[in-house]
């Protein structure tokens, strides 16, 4: 299963509001470019939330009791990017944005419960 989301600065700001951070790499384009990125960055846990949604969709109630999500943020996601996240049948998570791999990981159930 797959989800495709077009990322905007408004989405980053909305997440930042509940996240409560003041890390300007998410909000200050000039600073982000100075740090070597294409633009401001989507928060890593925000990316993970899109993968977690696929876990909830696949596993339903079990996700709340036995869900296990691993995400590694390997590439930047910036406003204007189309973020594509996929949960494969074997539980592998992969996500791309801006023509690059942005996130890898897995969404599975713990066997021991």
């Amino acid at each position: 299963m797959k989800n495709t989301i077009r990322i905007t600065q408004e989405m980053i700001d909305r997440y930042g509001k509940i996240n409560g951070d003041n890390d300007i790499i998410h909000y200050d384009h000039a600073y982000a470019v100075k740090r070597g990125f294409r633009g401001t960055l989507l928060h890593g846990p925000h990316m993970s939330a899109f993968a977690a949604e696929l876990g909830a969709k696949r596993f339903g109630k079990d996700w709340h009791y036995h869900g296990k999500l691993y995400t590694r943020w390997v590439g930047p996601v910036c406003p204007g990017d189309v973020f594509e996240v996929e949960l494969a049948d074997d539980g592998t998570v992969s996500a791309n944005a801006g023509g690059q791999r942005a996130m890898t990981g897995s969404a599975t159930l713990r066997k021991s419960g």
Partner: protein
Amino acid sequence: MTRPSEIKPREDSTPGTPYAGFAIGRDLGETRFTITPEIAEEYFRAVDADRALYRIDGRQAAAPNVLFPYMTCALYRTYPPIQGIVMGEVEIEFHHPIWADEDTEVVATGRILDKFERKGRRYVRWEEEFRRADGQLLAKLVNTFHVPE
């Protein structure tokens, strides 16, 4: 209701912690917060979630990852952040629903597991547990982040 901003030191609000300041094995200060129906709803909106996916036997639960905005509260209260921290990875296990129709008092605890350099970058790895005030385990995680020079 506890908003993460109420309990999480913000970048530049205090002198931040350089890489050398993180001590392996040190416990993070216990941090308490309350997830309310309003927070659950705001998080749904913040991550464009489909609420219908989080109904359990007819009862509305929060997205279990509603804990993510609180993830660094205990960490940053012990080690105030500097600008430019970049998150590397997280593994989180969910153990019990957080209900979206009631207040849930959460107690977060954790400790620094490791710090290391890889490809010229400095990283800190730490773990955290989230429990309800009655002791019920809600979730636990391990996170790694990069501390800029």
